[in-house]
């Protein structure tokens, strides 16, 4: 299973609505969540939803490092790959 930027967009919208600045459907991969207007609680909520929907443990994710959508997508994919490897 792979976690895509579009997958993140869907979950972000459900958990935290539209960004304060810019268009979530645009080129957002490298824009920081802070600049988009998503706060720390919104991101925790998003991670929790990813965990539920993708069955991957991300609850102790290094939040300080996952500052952009791309970083978050990469992190989730690395976790997914690790879980698959365990199986």
């Amino acid at each position: 299973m792979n976690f895509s930027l579009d997958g993140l967009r869907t979950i972000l919208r459900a958990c935290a609505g539209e960004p304060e600045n810019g268009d979530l459907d645009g080129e957002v991969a490298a824009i920081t969540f802070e600049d988009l207007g998503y706060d720390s609680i919104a991101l925790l909520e998003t991670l929790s939803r990813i965990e539920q929907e993708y069955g991957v443990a991300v609850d102790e994710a290094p939040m300080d490092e996952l500052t952009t959508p791309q970083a978050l997508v990469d992190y989730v994919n690395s976790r997914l790959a690790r879980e698959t490897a365990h199986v």
Partner: protein
Amino acid sequence: MLPPRRVVITGIGVVAPRGIGVKNFWETLTSGRSATRNITAFDATGFRSRIAAECDFLPTEHGLTQEQAARMSRSSQFAHVAAREALAQSGLEVTERVAARTGVALGSAVGSVRELDRLYREISGDGASWELAPEKAGPYLADYNTPSSLVREIAWLTGAQGPAAMISAGCTSGLDAVGYACEILREGSADVMITGATDAPITPITVACFDAIKATSPHNDDPEHASRPFDRDRDGFVLGEGGAVFVLETAEHAHARGAHVIAEVAAFAARCNAHHMTALRPDGREMAAAIDSALTTARIAPEAIDYINAHGSGTKQNDRHETAAYKRSLGDAARRTPVSSIKSVIGHSLGAIGSIELAACALAIEHGVIPPTANLHTPDPDCDLDYVPLVAREQRVDVALSVGSGFGGFQSAAVLVKEGAHR
């Protein structure tokens, strides 16, 4: 214009973890031994944080009737027991005339959430449906869903018939309620206020919501050392429970009846950070503004503060924010003033803690002892003040500052002074 009325504390009651009654409370605080442990209130398997500072509290052992124990929520029971102790200490007799001039201001962040949680399971079949079964609700659910019922219980207990309110501002509720009571007294709307705060949040829904934002400590293997404010290795706050209640009077009223004055509430001030519901900006600007305002009202210079009872929740963010606020507000005096967090010993009882901490300040003034910050072995380099680590300190305290910070951005500060002390 008349000078504003002075407000004094003439009675204190406390229910805290390993500290039911003022005497036990003070012994526990000054021992520097943490009362946190594995949660026994419910089976916490599956939760991220499974520790808390709990009260070993059986209502019927503390003077409540079976009927009261069944009716009142746990937070209400805490307030009841604390209020009775405070009233007894004050020696106040609430006659019919006094009743009309006696009010109640009680703080609580989450009211009767423990009972809302418990009864939800009954009426929903453990969440089986959105629709609920009212016939399974029992007779008291309305009380639990209407937390102002806590105030009613205290008014009934004490006979108060003056202005009454529950004050709720998250984790500053306990300071804000006392601040509210002071205003009622100073403006002349009452002569006596029964005031304080209570909360009993150790229940699955509350533990789960703090899990979800990783605010509470996951230090589950070593609960006694989990609450470590200002320590480099701190990893969140530890939930607590309890209540503290004061008999607050105008100085004139207290002196006229020859009451013993424990301390004077010289000032209260509050600000909002208007930043975020849970996050804090690192500069401590708004907390500092609240402290500045309180000191100005009390006409106290930073150098005159003998003790600061910190919010000191033990989250990474709070302890730095707060340290920055002290430096910003007090300047050089911040480094010379002892600061401690009793949450290291009794955990964080949300809305109740502000009043419990004020009680600690009053007792520090009365006994000339500063309770320590337990578990502070290796200070965070960003937290570089005198946090009175590990061991209580004997020191005369004439002026104590108590500070609180709450979800919603609430920042509050209160100043207690020894009545008549030169300052």
